[in-house]
């Protein structure tokens, strides 16, 4: 029959039976990259189209990348739904039972997903810029610092979306619902002039806006109230802390 072929001493504790962290990261990168290759391609293509359109349709001198960045950030925010598709907390046994700490494993999946979405968006952007260039609308390009802050903005929103994906049963509802409620609340308070409450509630939105808008400033333009990198770092910290918490969530397979 064949099972008696290679008798082997019991591995037990003599062999290290747990995979190395880097190995697990590679596996998760492969998992997301292979499992979501169609979605990643679609994101790249979409991003490329948006950037190309924005560059070719721009009227003012110099690129206006606001809409491109907005697109990227929204895509990053929605991406966790795809990363965790089919694996809400109640149907995640395979992932959880692999011999890696659950929190670490969740964070590695989130990291792998983040890596891919940034890569996909960046590739799309470059392709869009290249396409626009071919059509005669070469852009001045992004300053490296600006590009970094764009990535930071995407990662913040990706991180916040990942909190919902890893810790809730229906992340879609949260991802769409929370900002909706927030925006409605702010609009309502503003409309009724309920200060300073409205101002306080708006502050995170404004600072996030600024964090996202940083790359829009081309070299030489006035920097204005420059708390931008700080705002981004603050948001990165918030998203990171929320993720560290959410990733520790260990749902129970209960029996009704």
């Amino acid at each position, binding site marked *: *029959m064949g*099972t*008696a072929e290679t*008798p082997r001493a019991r591995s037990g504790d003599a062999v290290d039976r747990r995979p190395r962290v880097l190995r697990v990261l590679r596996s998760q990168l492969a998992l997301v990259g292979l499992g979501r290759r169609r979605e990643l391609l679609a994101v790249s293509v979409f991003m490329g189209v948006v950037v190309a359109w924005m560059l070719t349709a721009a009227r003012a001198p110099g690129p206006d990348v606001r809409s491109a960045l907005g697109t990227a950030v929204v895509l990053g925010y929605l991406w966790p739904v795809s990363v965790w598709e089919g694996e809400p907390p109640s149907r995640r046994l395979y992932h959880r039972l692999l011999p890696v700490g659950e929190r670490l494993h969740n964070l590695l999946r989130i990291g792998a997903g983040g890596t891919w979405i940034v890569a996909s968006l960046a590739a799309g952007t470059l392709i869009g810029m290249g396409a626009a260039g071919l059509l005669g609308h070469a852009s001045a390009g992004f300053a490296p610092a600006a590009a970094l802050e764009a990535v930071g903005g995407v990662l913040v929103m990706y991180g916040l979306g990942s909190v919902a994906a890893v810790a809730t049963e229906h992340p879609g509802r949260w991802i769409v619902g929370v900002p909706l409620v927030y925006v409605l609340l702010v609009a309502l308070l503003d409309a009724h002039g309920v200060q300073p409450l409205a101002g306080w509630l708006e502050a995170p939105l404004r600072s996030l806006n600024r964090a996202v808008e940083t790359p829009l400033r081309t070299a030489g333009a006035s920097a204005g109230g420059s708390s931008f990198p700080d705002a981004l770092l603050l948001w990165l910290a918030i998203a990171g802390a929320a993720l560290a918490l959410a990733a520790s969530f260990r749902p129970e397979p209960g029996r009704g």
Partner: protein
Amino acid sequence: MEGRSRESLIRVRSEDPRPIYVQIMDEVRRGVVLGALRPDDPLPSVRDLAAELRVSPNTVAQAYRELERSGEAYTRRGVGTFVASGVDPGRLRESLARGIAEQALREAYRSGVGVDHLLAEIRRAAGQDARPEGASTP
């Protein structure tokens, strides 16, 4: 449901009232009595026999230990278990026959059939069927 070993026709049955390790021991004895196993012949490894019979390896190991204890087999560390050299097929046949007789008596008693009645029926049944070759005369 049966399990059969390729190597030495060892067979155990779930419906058999005897514990599995006893069945294995008796099968080894049967092999010796019938000449399929000769002195110093190797018995299948514990692992192989367990797999073939779909039984726990500890059960096979127990059977081999008991055979060793009764002098019917010996173990060479790292090599395996073998039929003992001094094993006497005649004596084994006797103990097998005794086991069969005891089982028949148990069945008979269970149904209220007495010893003499049973003996008479055995003779009658033996007289009716063709005697198997090589069977010794009673």
